[in-house]
């Protein structure tokens, strides 16, 4: 009996007890427009004293990533890779109707771990974030801006490529402004812990695209009915175009939300 007792005493020592910590998970990923929008209807809001009515706002998101470490301010320029550990990813592109409040599913499930996420990334790119040429339009907008009875129509298709990516500021740092940095919006601050079967929601807010926009400059040229946003990034000649490009790359239009498995969609 004694040898058996020794063996039985040994069994709890090992054999499949314990954990290495955290776990790998897969989850759903969707994008949603403003909750007060109505699908198929223009979305109207006030910005800079103007009543802006968007009839079209399609944004292409190439990928979503979550990371566990906040980037340090003043850190190394233009690193497309976040410090720390990536804890979530959705690697499928989606054209998101920013005017539709309904969940629009990304074409692939997300994968990640249960390490808490502190920061998110949104990739405004096609499949290859390093491609010099644009692989797809990133933003496609149409709408009107009205003030004091005067309405100006506008439209624009924005891409992100080498032509609208500024050159490095220092010859000693030739790699300081890679094209990938121009396509990645980060940091988007989050406080999310992923779990199996839950849903990661990317809220896109079209109103933020027009923060600080000078609508007084949105005027149709003589030979056109509508103002076209210039697709030259921060080298665009007019403030609204530069502002649109800048806001597209800020974390303003983007917010992440986590819905555990079984939770109803928030409205």
């Amino acid at each position, binding site marked *: 009996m004694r*040898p058996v007792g020794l063996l039985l005493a040994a069994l709890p020592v*090992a*054999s499949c007890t*314990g954990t290495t910590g955290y776990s790998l998970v897969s989850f759903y990923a969707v994008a949603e427009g403003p909750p007060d929008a109505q699908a198929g209807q223009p979305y109207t809001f006030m910005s800079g004293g103007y009543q802006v009515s968007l009839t079209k706002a399609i944004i292409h998101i190439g990928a979503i990533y979550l990371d566990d470490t906040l980037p340090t301010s003043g850190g*190394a320029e233009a690193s497309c890779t976040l410090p720390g550990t990536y804890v979530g990813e959705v690697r499928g592109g989606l054209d998101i109707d920013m005017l539709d409040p309904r969940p629009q599913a990304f074409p692939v499930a997300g994968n990640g771990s249960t390490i808490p996420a502190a920061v998110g990334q949104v990739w405004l790119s096609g*499949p290859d*974030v390093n491609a010099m040429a644009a692989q797809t339009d990133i933003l496609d907008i149409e709408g009107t801006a009205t003030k004091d009875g005067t309405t100006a129509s506008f439209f624009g298709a924005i891409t992100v490529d080498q032509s609208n990516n500024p050159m490095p500021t220092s010859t000693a740092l030739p790699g300081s402004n890679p*094209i990938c940095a121009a396509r990645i919006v980060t940091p988007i601050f989050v406080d999310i812990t992923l779990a199996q079967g839950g849903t990661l929601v990317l809220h896109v807010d079209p109103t933020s695209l027009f923060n600080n926009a000078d609508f007084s400059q949105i005027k149709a040229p003589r030979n056109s009915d509508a103002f076209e946003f210039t697709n030259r990034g921060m080298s665009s000649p007019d403030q609204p175009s530069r502002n649109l490009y800048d806001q597209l790359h800020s974390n303003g239009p983007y917010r992440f939300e986590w819905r555990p498995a079984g939770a109803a969609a928030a409205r």
Partner: protein
Amino acid sequence: MSGPASAQGPSTLDVRPPVVVKHVDAVYPPSALAERKDADVVLVVTVDADGHVSKVDVAESGAADLDEAAIVAARQWIFRPATREGKPVASRIRVSFHFAPPAPPPELVSPPVPAEPEVPMKTAVPQQTAPPPEDAAAHARREEPGVVNVYGRSVPPTPGNSAFNLRVGALANVPRQNATELLKLAPGILLTNEGGEGHAEQVFLRGFDAREGQDIEFTVGGVPINESGNLHGNGYADTHFIIPEVVESLRVVEGPFDPRQGNYAVAGSANYELGLEKRGLTAKYTTGSFGTQRALVLWGPREESVHTFGAAEAYKTDGFGQNRDAQRGTAIAQYEGQAGTGSYRLTGQVYATNFHTAGVIREDDYVHGRIGFYDTYDSSQGGDSLRASIAADIETKTGDTTLAQQVFLIKRTMRLREDFTGYLLDVQTPLQLPHEQRGDLIDLSVDELTVGGRGWARLAGKALGQTQQLELGYFARYDQALGEQQRLFPDSFVPYHIDTNLQSNLVDVGLYGSADVRPTRWITLDGGLRADVFSFDVNNLCAQQSIEKPLTTMPPGDESCLTQWQRGSHREANQRADTVSAAVLPKGSLLLGPFAHLTFSASYGKGVRSIDPNYITQDVKTPFASIEAYEGGAGYAGAVGGVDLVARSVFFQTHVDQDYIFNQTVGRNVIGVGTTRNGWVGAVRATGSWFDESANVTLVKSSYDDTHLLVPYIPDVVVRSDTAVWADSPWKVSGEPLRGALAAGVTYVGRRALPYSARSNTIFTIDANATLAWTHYEIGLVVTNLLDTKYRLTEFNYVANFTRSTEGAVPPTLVPARLFTAGAPRGIYGTFTINFGGA
């Protein structure tokens, strides 16, 4: 496998001479009749540990033809071999043969008388047996056997129930790809290999991921195998240069309880002793699955000891699946000669190999059919390896003191190309010119020279009515190591970045004192103190790799090893660091044997593992990891119903203050936090007249000290069984029997903990071998992975992205996922062996 140390074991002065089991009388040679020679011939006969005569020398000649007749007879004698401490050892005895001619025929005189009956020819009678009958024509001279000199190397005392002296014996028939697999005869060993046939095995023992040997002190005949300063892992141990057929025995000490154990003995130590029992010339050819061919030649001169041999091997294989081909050539030779009352050995070996490896693949790519189970992402992976060494040692015994001394010289080079992460790590930095992902193919090369020696003196004496022993010893080695790691473009092998470039001069000097004290017949205290001094002198030739504020007029661009300090000030690319530190390591065991055949033991030991030169900074105080271990257990050794039975049960705990953890982004081990292992080992070996069975089970839990989370990749449960049976068939060919033998090795590994709370798949494999032997010939059929199990040899959870961005239809994957290396499918091989001139 010999039994555990017994407090009731025989004293070290217990030496028994050989005993004749079968003798053959010498025949008086006809050539001597003419001269009617009457003489004595005295021979010195060397008897091997298996009781056969291996060498005969003439000590006193009677005449050439008489000498020859005596030698012919003596060679046919069979002995029960001499023993020392109960273990068979070689020995030399003096045997005297007296030759007397037969009585002459009577002269013919008249009248003729009937001829007297012919007296039968006298045969010379060896003096080792009963005295010959008196012969009126001879002057018989009887001589008592001379001094019996018992040879064979002294075996150190056994520290507790976790020391295994493994005689391979019949279990050599169990299929083994290489000498490392012989370790499986010891409990708890799991071997994996994600690096290809020329890459060292990854060894798991007692809850340690000993990586490629970094936590096990490997030696062959006392010559170190661990490579200090190897950039892939300090202590890397590649045993592929050892031809398994010349491994006579293996001494595995699990745990750091023996003062003789030095650097790298964290999980334990393993020493291969080489020898070739089958004498004569043996040629073996193997061919079979995956285009495998192996030619082996073994030479053991009959008149020399089993430790004198030569062996050469040529091997090639296409490997299973993709990118697993390999070729190697190996030669090893050893000579053992007598030195007074002791022996000396000279050993030399040369080994070279070239190989490819498939590396890891992602589980999701396999599941979705994007890659096959046995495929590879990167066919650039592989390497080559070379090792050459010479060693000389001598062991002599004078009175109660045994002295030993060894010197060795080792030259070693290695190149490894491995890709663990695909296209992930080559991120754009501001300093660099814009570039795409150039790939993570690591090219690591090492060039090492090792010279060193060891020696000890062991004194045995009587006190308190028991045999007591005291041993003092030393170990010293100097290593000069060059290590460089670069990253290559995958298609052209052109290096684009230097990760590391080190020149290291390393010294390890160890001194130890050990005592084996027996206050009573059934109590033994074995242990002592060891001190190791480690000296590091490391020149980092690529010390500066990034600059926060580079000079705009002198941008460093894509240079890996920079000569620019902060804000543009000049510096040289290199930086040197040196340090010396010492570790004092007490070790001891208490063995209690109040009952026959049963031994209880408790052991404590401190061990040490020097750290990677990459981590050496100027004057760092502790350039080593410290290990503390405890164990307690029981062992049985005896005969049950005609079967020799050895069994043991051991509980253990081991703590390491700086453990090594594999980091796939740098492709080698990195220092982590402290870890603790708790476990149990059970082992049994039963040997009968027609079978040999060795089985063992290990249960272990390995966890980090700070979080108490499990250490990943360590198997919780390992079960191993080696079985051999043999018998003579009832049929004979030309009067000689056919002997058949079957052998099988079974391995079960439980689900290993993986990062992110995952568990691996189990492993269950059976390897089998069947042979049929007749006189000098033997044919065999070997089947590995008999059940053709599709199993994952290693499994990981980490971040890897094998899709090149230029090919990609999807963005990169940056989160951990499951990866694995495939175990080999079923392999079938035929072997043909012929032996010339054996006993």
